[in-house]
């Protein structure tokens, strides 16, 4: 099945950056009631606005969990401005997938939550 490429399965089975962050990290939770995905993002920004540490917890389908895992890996060390500029196409590129209507919400929930955390 195309949707579940090896990289997605790998990130789903062994999520990177899964867990909480100690200290003064910003924490934002979001959910997607229609499919029951929920995610919490923890972000620690440096003085200069760089992402020093980021982690997530949550439950959801393979696509949403893999998306969270890949995104958290991808944004570490980037500036908040760079991360805020990320869009749907960037998530598709990371996942290596063209998102179908049915799965778009799952895949974008982590990015939306990260954006919300950076706006805090």
């Amino acid at each position: 099945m195309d949707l579940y490429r090896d990289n997605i399965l790998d990130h789903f089975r062994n999520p990177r950056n899964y867990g909480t962050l100690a200290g003064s990290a910003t924490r934002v939770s979001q959910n997607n009631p229609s499919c029951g995905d929920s995610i919490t993002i923890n972000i620690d920004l440096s003085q200069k606005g760089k992402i020093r540490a980021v982690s997530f917890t949550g439950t959801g389908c393979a696509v949403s969990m893999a998306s969270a895992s890949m995104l958290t890996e991808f944004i570490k060390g980037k500036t908040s401005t760079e991360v805020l500029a990320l869009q749907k196409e960037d998530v598709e590129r990371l996942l290596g997938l063209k998102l179908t209507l049915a799965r778009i919400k799952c895949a974008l929930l982590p990015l939306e939550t990260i954006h919300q955390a950076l706006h805090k």
Partner: protein
Amino acid sequence: MLFKPSKIASDFPVLQRKIKGKRIVYLDSTASSLKPQSVIQETVRYYEECPVNIFRGVYTLSEEATEGYENSRGKVAEFIGCPNSAEVVFTRNATESLNLIAQTVGRTLPAHSNIVSTVMEHHANIVPWQVISGEKKIPLRFIDIDNEGRLKLDDLEKKIDKNTAILTFTFISNVLGTINPVKEIIARVKKINKNTVIVIDAAQAVPHLKLSVMDLGCDFLVFSAHKMLGPTGVGVLWGKAELLKKMPPYQTGGEMIREVQLEKTVYNEPPYKFEAGTPDIAGVLGLAKAVEYLENIGMGKIREHEKELTVYALGKLQKLSAIEIYGPKEATERGGVIAFNLKGIHPHDVAQILNNDNICIRSGHHCAMPLHHRLEINSSCRASFYLYNDESDVDALLQGLENTAKFFLRKWC
């Protein structure tokens, strides 16, 4: 007649279809049933032979259409054990039937009333009542369920009182499969308050078992044609004649009037009072054919068949340790619906993998979010059975679930 699902399946054109070269395993009849050739043919016949409006023409075509439409009403009435076909109102679906009751009976409730429902309802039997509760500032209470997903009958005495104007609940849960003891519930409620109007959401019951509105003793009963082999676009509202008579109209316009002057209108009698505008005539004709089809097989046999399949499926599914099944354990207490979760795998992923083999199950909250909250889960998978399913479909589901578990977890625990 011998009950042979494979023979029945041959009456359903879509089941002859192959996708990616494989047969279709349809396990989502709770959402909508498949349609047999006779029903499809009837809607085509209408469009080919007498595709005209009803009640309006004196010409032969219109008379034929009108007669067909009214015969359908009679057939549906008989099917649900109602001797007076004027008590059968055609709507768009069960949802509209419930909205109709809420917007007429609900809207005219006296102050100090309250409305009671249950936590296992489909959104269609919650939201219309929330609207009324909000507008009229009257309480909306919910009967709880026990650990096996049965209504807590003790809750009836706690939630229902002298001011309970409406009790509305589902005959069969579209998630848990629970068959509620409708007669017992009505008897207990009537002891507390004999004036409480009883609304039964029979969207999952009428397609699957023999029922009689006279025997149940309810005041209203609603269902949808598309879940009982009929076309989409038609629903039924059955209501006691004396209640229908007292109710204000729901929508207004053509067909539902007796006389219109520019200043005022005299409404038609029920059921016409509630059927404003041109209805889905082809759909209503198709529904009568669906009823005919079900009656030819026999509702008793259909129920027995679904029960046997459910016992078979529950027995197999329960052996999987990675599975959590919701609802009553006894098949006698449930319809052919099984909601479950594979631990650690999201229902969307399960459904997606099953789709590789054309196994159609539902994933999500099945329009019952409050129930999922009550079960402390976000979503679930749901497989449901109807007369065209057999053990090979259950076996396919089992195989699909094992594949899914292997695929995501790499071990079958």
